[in-house]
């Protein structure tokens, strides 16, 4: 049997790595992926808790999180495409003006 807090610590590590990527990377798409990574870490924690506490609610939350992530990806990638069209660059450090 794997103790629950193994999972939790793993999710913490993944979340931290996600934050690192979030501040470290410069490519918009990659930063977006970092956010997805953090979401996944949270999902892991959810599932671990729900399994160890014997409540399925956590997994329902995970489903919701996944749905939200999907919607977010749709809109976010649309925005990214638009940005890339107008700014001709995917580097967030080059996209620092509200209007052109």
């Amino acid at each position, binding site marked *: 049997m794997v103790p629950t807090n193994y999972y939790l610590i793993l999710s913490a590590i993944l979340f931290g790595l996600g934050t690192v990527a979030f*501040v470290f990377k410069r490519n918009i798409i990659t930063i977006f992926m970092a956010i997805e990574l953090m979401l996944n870490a949270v999902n892991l924690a959810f599932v671990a808790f729900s399994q160890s506490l014997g409540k399925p609610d956590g997994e329902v939350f995970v489903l919701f999180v996944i749905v939200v992530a999907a919607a977010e990806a749709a809109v976010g990638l649309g925005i990214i495409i638009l940005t890339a069209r107008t700014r001709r660059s995917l580097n967030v450090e080059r996209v*620092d003006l509200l209007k052109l």
Partner: protein
Amino acid sequence: MPILDYLWIIPLLPLLGSALNGLFGKNWPNKVVNTVALGSTGLSFVLAIEAVREFFANGQQPFRREFVEWIVAGTFHAGFNLELDQLSVVMLLVVTGVGFLIHIYSTGYMAHEGGYYRFFSYLNLFMFFMLILVLAANFVLLFVGWEGVGLCSYLLVGFYFLRKSAADAGKKAFIVNRIGDFGFMLGMFLLFRTFHSLDFSAVFTQMATLPPEEMGQFGVLTIAALLLFVGATGKSAQIPLYVWLPDAMEGPTPVSALIHAATMVTAGVYVVARSHLLYTHAPSAMYVVAVVGCATAFFAATIGLVQSDIKKVLAYSTVSQLGYMFLGCGVGAFSAGIFHLMTHAFFKALLFLSAGSVIHAVGGEQDMWKMGGLASKIKVTFWCMLFGTIAIAGFPPFAAFFSKDAILFAAYNSEAGGKTLYAVGLLAAVLTSFYVFRLIWLTFFTEPRYDEHHVHVHESPKNMTVPLMILAFLSLTGGWFALPALFGGKDYFTDFLAPVLGSVEAAGTEGSASLEHTLSLVAVAAATAGLLVAWRMYTKGAKQGPSTGLHKVLYHKYYIDELYQAVVVSPLVWVSTNVLWKVIDVGFIDGIVNGVGTVSRAIGDTVRQTQSGNTRSYAVWVLVGAIVVFAIIFWPILHPALFGEVRP
């Protein structure tokens, strides 16, 4: 429907007319404006008559009702409550009646002026506020009307606002009135603090139980009475605040007639009479009122002697007549004061309107030295004006004879220097009859002094002359209520007002009829004397001589305006320029405002640095926030770790 239950309609109608004319009248033809203005005023006049009829039908029961709740703050309560008792009845009829007549007159007089709709809008507004003033059942509502008529007076005096003198006169009237109103407000506050209410009924019922304060000792009531009187002097142009009224003649003549002779300026008298209980409980204040009134009567009359502007003469005579009223009130003859108020409303309105007609005839000329010999040319005006003159001079059986006589009689009988007051009043009567007849002679007799080539004299149209005639009739008959008194009968007017003004008359009415007869004879003799002197001086075409000595002083109104200029105005201007503006406004207030601007800009400049637009640095800021949040959340879990104790 019993109109009394809908008393609020009476003041509301003029407001409606004013709103209609003011908002839409700009593009309306004069006919429509007339219809609206006259319709509203006339209708309210009719309703007023109906209301009075019902009042009598109810056996003269004072009618009092709160129609709308207005201000409720803690113990303070002021409603929109109206009151109809004998006093208000008199005022109501005078205001609506004379006001209606003057409206009719104005349609002729203002026919060729610009801003026709504006004029009538203001005039109706004035009617509204005046009716509020006379119908109000508490000091607060009364004050609303009080201020409102002040506003309308300002607007109408400055009606020709393109003329600087007119604008200045308007401002002067307004500012001088502010001083009085300040006193009035203080008086109200004092009353509220004493009686915890401002309803007439409440205040006066409480007051009736109090003992009168000692002569010469100044208690709350005295001070309140004096403060109210200050307001009265402002509104009713008594010494020392009379200076605005002569300048107010800059306004159109109907305005002078309505506001500055018949109605508004008598508001002070009305207030004093309304709160007569207060004054009877403060004898010293009452004495002050008498003295001030008497002094004003004489003082203004002397100035009136030498003025050359026809309206100025009438203005000063108004001041002096108001003085008479206050004298009457001051000596306790409140009903006499009100009586004179009514008659004065008639004949002074008549005089002003006739003067307006004269000015109309000679094409806007107001200087009496440029008139003369008009009697034959404008007969109707002449006769009406003559009626008014005789009335004001106080010849029987004209109105002023009775009213002025009653006042002087009361003054004679009043204790504490009554004789002196009487003497001065009598002298003022002589002067009065002198300057009015001087006016008559200079205007209507002697050879013409205007050039016939340019000015072609013509009689005024019907809608101006008809009101003149009506007023002439009134100023003839207006005083006959008191006619029986002469023959030992009873004075109906006084009796009528007795329920309101109470048995105070006792002071005045006692004393035998014989004395009264003598006094009236003396008065008539005084009037005749004035008449003769005027005839003697002006009957054979007098020249406008070089003014010297006393004449010069009088002609310049004792240099009072200059005095005020030097003592009050210029110091004020100096202070506001050098202290309020240069120091406080520029240095202090602008300093604060600019300081706020500078500080916020500085803050913005520093904080702006974080808004680099660089997503990654934003991300770092998010991280910082996250760290704080996590630290707070996990603190209870983590802090045992600092002591190495592991929780189960």
